């Protein structure tokens, strides 16, 4: 009986095993074929999404907030600044920033900059188009709402300030090392500022207007900035800027009038382990000197008056953030203070001598999103004069703002 069973068992193995092996082989072949097809499909899909040399990036920022003054309690802002960055190749870059902002209930659209950069060498870039003028540090580096520690710009800086903001022209810029000393540099030619001759509005005679197009004369304004990093960790940057050019309109009485802009800036950022904090210090002094000229007298426009057309503005701000402590809430807090002044020519209808102190507490939601709470104390030595256009908000004010970079 046992022998019969063994015979049947052996015969079964003999008869069925090759067929099972054949079946497994067929199944494996099918699976390999399926895998090959899947790999081929993935290859095709990957090829379809393969990155080219050109790369596009949409960035930008937005901000809005609440403003409380003696006269108003209002939500303000609603600005949105998309930034388009297009890397055409390893050497060619296009960048542009638009500004959408609510102004007096209407939507204002502005072109902050739109320019092309070509990398000439490891240390030199050619830039052409409309760009942020490398004058000081606030406009080119600190003006975006998510970078600026306060809801507003310092006195004298901004679209109607004495400090140039953006212009059209060409620029050579870059960074390099002199031994172990790092430097950066910029030299440019732009249309330049335009001098208001006071013919349309005598009260504005002598004001320099920036970023007005087209140019009002054939002369181009030449400028530059040189920055030094005295410390090897690049924590301190010292900069000097200058611009010089004709500002009077061609074929006018002021066609030979020139203006000199100059600025000195400082940036110091340092981790302070003893305080578990990061200290950020920024400062800038800006001055403007316009050649002597005569402007219509606002009291009697048939007469002409003259004054020393020199203006200056400076600011210093400090912020400290306990970013190195463990508590998540406190390490996202930042305390900031800013002092800024603006002096415009004595004797001009637009004369102003103003000082502002801003005190703020910020809360960083992430590395580029923050809530700003600040209080401004404003004082002016020339109460009787016309308020300048540099800032629509006069007097003391409390702000709550949010800003988001993306």
């Amino acid at each position, binding site marked *: 009986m046992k022998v019969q069973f063994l015979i049947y068992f052996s015969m079964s193995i003999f008869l069925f095993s090759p067929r099972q092996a054949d079946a497994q082989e067929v199944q494996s072949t099918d699976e390999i074929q399926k895998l090959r097809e899947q790999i081929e499909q993935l290859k095709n899909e990957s090829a379809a999404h393969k*990155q080219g040399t050109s*790369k*596009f*990036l949409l*960035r930008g920022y937005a901000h809005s907030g609440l403003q409380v003054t003696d006269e108003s309690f209002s939500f303000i802002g609603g600005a949105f600044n998309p930034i388009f*960055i*297009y*890397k055409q190749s*390893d050497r060619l*870059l296009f*960048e542009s920033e638009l500004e959408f902002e609510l102004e007096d209930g209407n939507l204002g659209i502005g072109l902050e900059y739109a320019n092309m*950069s070509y*990398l000439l*060498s*490891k*240390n*030199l*870039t050619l*830039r052409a188009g409309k760009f942020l003028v490398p004058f000081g540090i606030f406009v*080119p*580096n*600190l003006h975006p709402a*998510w*970078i600026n520690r306060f809801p507003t710009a310092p006195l004298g800086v901004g679209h109607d300030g004495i400090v140039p903001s953006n212009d059209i022209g060409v620029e050579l*810029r*870059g*960074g*390099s*090392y*002199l*031994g*172990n000393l*790092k*430097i*950066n*540099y*910029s*030299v440019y030619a732009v249309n330049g500022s335009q001098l208001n001759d006071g013919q349309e509005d005598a009260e504005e005679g002598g004001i320099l207007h920036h970023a007005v197009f087209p140019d009002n004369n054939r002369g181009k304004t*030449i400028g*530059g900035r*040189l*920055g030094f990093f005295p410390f*090897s*960790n*690049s*924590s301190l*940057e010292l900069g000097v800027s*200058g611009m*010089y050019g004709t500002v009077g309109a061609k074929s006018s009485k002021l066609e030979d009038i*020139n203006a*000199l802009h100059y600025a000195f800036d400082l*940036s110091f*950022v340092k981790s302070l382990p003893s305080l578990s904090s*990061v200290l950020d210090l920024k400062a800038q002094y800006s001055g403007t000197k316009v050649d002597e000229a005569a402007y219509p007298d606002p009291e009697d426009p048939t007469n002409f008056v003259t004054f020393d057309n020199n203006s200056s503005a400076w600011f210093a701000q400090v912020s400290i953030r306990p970013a190195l402590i463990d508590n998540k809430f406190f390490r996202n807090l930042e305390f900031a203070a800013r002092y800024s002044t603006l002096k415009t020519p004595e004797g001009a209808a637009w004369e102003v001598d103003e000082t502002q102190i801003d005190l703020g507490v910020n809360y*960083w939601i992430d*590395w*580029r999103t923050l809530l700003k709470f600040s209080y401004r104390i404003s004082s002016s030595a020339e109460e009787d004069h016309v308020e300048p256009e540099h800032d629509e908000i006069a007097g003391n004010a409390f702000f709550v703002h949010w800003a988001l*970079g993306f």
Partner: protein
Amino acid sequence: MKKIQILSFFIIVVVFSFIYTGCSARSNIATAKSGAQLWGENCLRCHNTPSPKTFSDAEWDAAVLHMRVRANLTASEATKIVEFLKTAN
């Protein structure tokens, strides 16, 4: 006017002398710094340092080129920073 023009010319000559010297000078500090160190030092000068996870590798290529021009980074600095960001991404 002439003084200003001479001064402008002098500044331009000095600047481009710096550029030439900078191209040929060897900086031990620049060579020794890692991408992470350069990322921290250069970004923090104006804004908080971004997380490497913020963008894809391709997006970092465009973002760092943008910042190379904006922050006047050297080619070596930009290369080290973008390599660090991609590695840590």
